[in-house]
């Protein structure tokens, strides 16, 4: 699809980020010092790389400590402070130092430096091709069996410990048993899973962090004296590669155009708007942002909600009620289920992403009507997610829309993960498939992920949005989104879209709103007039680079893992890559081994109840902030740990790690079905 912002030819010798010498006016006051720090850092990196022939991708011995003992947050550029960070973890400097041509404006540890134009890809479903059905590979039987046995042992041991514990150490169980006439808040039975299974690997969850959740993240080290019952921070911190945060486009940044805009709004607006949208909490910023979002997703209008979870839980009840039916994918997010329960409508679920099961269900429910009475349903709302956060699978939208025509249901697409992350211009799953977004009744999404902000939105027809504005739960009761968050949303969105210069005033003075192309740049009049983005964000080049870097990283990792022999789920284009572990014991082993590497890698492991019992997994969330070297690093780590943990159970052609790393570009562009 030709795009108005894609045609800006970026010559390969050019840095992706505009040379700073061209844009001194748009920088903060400290620009000069900032720049000198940048060049110092680069010089330092070059010197280092000359001195040590070892590139950081070759992993130093495991014994090397990588903890960060001192941390100064005031330094503009962390690379500029070699005393603060030695490069033991290989995260501070890019392995290949930048040439004097390339000047990067981002902090490498927040948003990696990658100037190689080859490491780019476009997230787009090849037009005309059928949507591939990803067969989810089953592991060999011995893995399944050992998984079941593991759970059995865990459960038996747990019950044994409970049995003896209650008799020998009753004081430890008082809060789980009725006492003093109160029923326990959480009975020993209800909490069994948490206490006896999850507690064992609690060190892998809820790690306290500090700093920017960008390309790297700094975690507090924790220790325990009582088998995870209490985890204490030791005061030491470890920096590691972050492939866990939902930072798809790398907008989690403390520096740069977006952060500057947010700082500006804090000084202009403060941090709060003190009320609900319908009760005096509406700011001009809300209106501006809603118009921009509608333009971004290609709908008539949109509504913002201050919390992503609450977007679903407060809007679904405004759409359907008693006598209506909701058809929901079995793996839909908890917030959707919450909203569905609040709405009072009936619910039916279909097998995840199975269009056959979906159509059968549609035929059944429409022909049968409401249970018992057999009256026809008032309306049927189908809720699917664009990209499933635990599976990495993408909804088969073309087929859903085909069925929509035939069965006349309303379609609600939750793009919490796909907005910004999918499609050539980041407009989500509709653009990915080349579908007109207006053929979908309601588009919902969140700002937490690709935009580095918080909250969510719904977008649709003007009438429908007004209906939700007045009758949704958020309008009268929930606090409105605060100005800094709104600004982060607008700034990041505008830099994905690019800003079109003010159109010449037409003679008859008609508004040009209807003529704005989709997916096109944001008209300047849709942004607050004090908005001053740096030129690389304004012309959309950086946004485009981010999208293309993410698309490359996503494909590279998921295909690389497959070539290494791992079982992964979901689509190759998904920035979420779940790697199957199956055995519960491998979860903590994997997570801890990744953490203890010379370059620590922080991962998310998920298991029951978020996934089915047997398919425990580790979930990688890629980001545009990662460089190809980072993905290499992850592949290398997985390769080694995968051998240890016997994870390479996949089928198909295998490549060696070196081959994958060398042929990365080829691998990404390959046609695999």
């Amino acid at each position, binding site marked *: 699809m030709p795009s108005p912002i894609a045609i800006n030819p970026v010559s390969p010798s050019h840095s992706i980020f505009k040379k700073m010498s061209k844009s001194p006016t748009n920088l903060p006051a400290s620009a000069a010092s900032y720049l000198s720090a940048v060049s110092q850092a680069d010089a330092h990196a070059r010197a280092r790389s000359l001195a040590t022939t070892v590139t950081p991708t070759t992993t130093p011995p495991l014994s090397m400590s990588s903890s960060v003992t001192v941390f100064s947050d005031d330094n503009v550029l962390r690379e500029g402070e070699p005393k603060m960070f030695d490069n033991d973890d290989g995260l501070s400097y890019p392995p290949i130092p930048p040439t004097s041509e390339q000047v990067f404006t981002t902090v490498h540890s927040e948003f990696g430096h990658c100037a190689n134009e080859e490491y780019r890809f476009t997230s787009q479903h090849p037009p005309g091709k059928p949507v591939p059905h990803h067969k989810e590979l089953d592991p060999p039987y011995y893995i399944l069996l050992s998984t079941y046995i593991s759970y059995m042992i865990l459960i038996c041991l747990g019950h044994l410990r409970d049995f003896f514990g209650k008799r020998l150490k009753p004081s430890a169980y008082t809060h789980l048993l009725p006492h003093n006439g109160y029923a326990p808040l959480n009975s020993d039975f209800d909490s069994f899973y948490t206490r006896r299974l999850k507690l064992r690997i609690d060190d892998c969850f809820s790690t306290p962090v500090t700093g920017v959740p960008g390309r790297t993240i700094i975690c507090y080290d924790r220790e325990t004296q009582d088998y995870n019952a209490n985890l204490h921070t030791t005061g030491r911190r470890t920096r590691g590669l972050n492939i866990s945060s939902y930072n798809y486009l790398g907008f989690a940044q*403390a520096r740069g155009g977006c952060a500057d805009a947010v700082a500006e709004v804090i000084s202009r607006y403060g941090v709060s708007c003190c009320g609900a949208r319908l009760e005096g909490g509406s700011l001009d910023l809300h209106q501006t942002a809603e118009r921009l979002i509608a333009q971004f997703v290609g709908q008539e209008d949109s509504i913002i909600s201050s919390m992503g979870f609450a977007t679903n839980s407060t809007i679904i009840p405004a759409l359907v009620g008693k006598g209506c039916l909701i058809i929901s994918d079995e793996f839909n997010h908890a917030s959707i289920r919450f909203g569905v329960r609040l709405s009072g409508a009936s619910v039916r679920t279909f097998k995840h992403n199975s269009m056959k099961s979906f159509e059968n269900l549609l035929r059944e429910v429409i022909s049968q009507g409401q249970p018992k009475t057999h009256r026809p349903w008032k309306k049927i709302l189908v809720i699917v997610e664009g990209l499933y956060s635990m599976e990495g699978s993408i909804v088969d939208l073309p087929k859903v829309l085909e069925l929509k025509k035939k069965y006349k249901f309303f379609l609600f697409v939750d793009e919490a993960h796909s907005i910004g992350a999918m499609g050539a211009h980041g407009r989500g799953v509709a653009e990915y498939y080349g579908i007109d977004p207006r053929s979908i009744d309601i588009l919902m999404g969140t700002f937490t992920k690709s935009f580095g902000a918080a909250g969510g939105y719904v977008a649709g027809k003007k009438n429908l949005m007004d209906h939700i504005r007045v009758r949704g739960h958020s309008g009268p009761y929930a606090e409105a989104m605060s100005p800094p968050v709104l600004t982060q949303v607008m700034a990041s969105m505008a830099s994905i879209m690019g800003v079109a210069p003010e159109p010449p005033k037409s003679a008859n003075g008609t508004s040009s709103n209807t003529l704005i192309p989709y997916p096109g740049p944001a008209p300047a009049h849709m942004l607050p007039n004090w908005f001053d983005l740096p030129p690389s964000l304004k012309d959309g080049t950086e946004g485009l680079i981010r999208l293309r870097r993410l698309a490359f990283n996503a494909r590279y990792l998921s295909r690389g893992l497959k070539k290494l022999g791992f079982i992964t789920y979901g689509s190759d284009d998904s920035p979420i890559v779940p790697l199957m572990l199956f055995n519960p014991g491998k979860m903590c082993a994997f997570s801890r081994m990744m953490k203890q590497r010379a370059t620590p890698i922080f991962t998310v492991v998920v298991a029951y109840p978020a996934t089915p019992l047997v398919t425990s997994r580790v979930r990688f969330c890629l980001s545009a902030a990662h460089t190809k070297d980072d993905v290499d690093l992850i592949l290398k780590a997985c390769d080694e740990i995968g051998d240890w943990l016997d994870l390479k159970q996949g089928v198909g052609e295998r490549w060696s790690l070196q081959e994958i790393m060398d042929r990365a570009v080829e691998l990404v562009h390959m046609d695999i079905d």
Partner: protein
Amino acid sequence: MNATLDYLSYSLENLETGFYKIPGSQVLARYVKSSHQNDPGRTLLEVILLIFVIRTLLQSRTRADGSGKHFIQFSEREIDELVDEWTPEPLEQPLTERESLDLASLPIIAGPTGPKPKLLGSGKTVMNLASFNFTGLAGNEHIKQKATEALRKYGLGSCGPAGFYGTIDVHTELEKSIADFLGTEDSILYSQAFATVSSVIPAFAKRGDIIVADRNINFSIQKGLQISRSTIRWFDHNDMKSLEEVLESIHKESRKRRAPLTRRFIITEGIFERDGSMADLPKLIELKHKYKYRLILDETFSFGTVGRTGRGLTELYNVPASEVDMLIGSVATSLCAAGGFCAGSSVVVKHQRINGTAFVFSASTPAALSVAATEAISIIRDSPSILSTLQENVRTFRSILDRLDCITIPSHHASPIIHIQVRTASASSLLPTAVPSSASKSSNPTSVLPRNPQVFDIDAEERLLQEVVDDVLAQGILTTRAKRLRGHEMSEARPSIRLAISTAFTKKECEKAATTIKTSLVKVLGKRR
């Protein structure tokens, strides 16, 4: 023929030896033999029982769809026809005239909010009695500076739920400082105030548990109750006698039925969102201890607004906050940031970190906003004058508005939100705040409606009140009706104008605003007679 018989007997023999090889099978065989000998009918019965068990086991799996009692078989063609015939209702209903008028006249603030914001459109600077800026911290320079510092350290978004690298140190700090401020063991942050209580309730109360709730609880609590699926009993609004009766009746009933011990909760609000009245905390604590209930107290409007230093109801009544099992408050109102919290014992908080749906499945609050809240707490802690000025301003408003006899103000005298309702002439609602005093019969605890509910004409009263709001706005004072989702709440709240008083006003401003509102009320409500 013979061959088949041979084969049959051979396989039977095989089966028999195989059966006897199973350890314990001898015992079973002996049992079957002897029971058959004693009572051949019993064997038959047991076989039938076995078949029945197998049948029910198999049936329960396929019950879900397709084979229910009410399922009708259709041919494919019939289904196609039915699909063609079916026409759904439209997804949205067009707004009523009033609704679209309301939406169009919605005041929108241009620029920063605060005590005196500028309105979009007219460009007029107005006095803001609509936004919750009780402590006057909106736009506080110190907070702004701290928030900017946090932004430069953490970026804005947290990019993940608390479980997956979304627990930033500033969240822990805010949790600690809230717990410290209130005097509880711990607290937990949610990223939206509205979502807090509706997530806290179902984290603890499940099907079969008992919840005793006030009849006038806010919408968010109602949603929490709905999700929890617990057994709900209602007591009359803010009526401790009614509460005691309900508790007593539940107690008797469960004794009579020898019901198993379940979790029991009393749910009410500190200052009620619907009318600004205040709960009688000491009595609540007494009753909760007496009947062994846990207390969930929503302090959204009382936290940071009442008590000498703004610690809320517990400070006002001098009750240790640890007596309240789950104390819920908002970070978005008095602290002028975003989010909500639940404070309580560490067991209570820990439980929510795994079971609080809105906590687990939602990204954590942006760091800059958490830092702003932490700063707000320390400012409130250090300057008690904020609270005394606020109370002074509330008194000023009340002293002027209370004397008006065309309205009723159900709000408590210390409440920073003042609800103004139209006083109707009919005798039944002359005492809207007072309990229907006919002591002879109490309301039905299973119904959310009291025995003799107030009668009011929502539409007419809303229209009148909106007229007042518009009139007052024309004179430079921004107020708002308390907006409600009519038809979605469990019981309808009486229409009201809700004033939110701020500490940022001077006494003179308050007097002037109150007088303006008073004049306007007299003018509009007087016209109607």
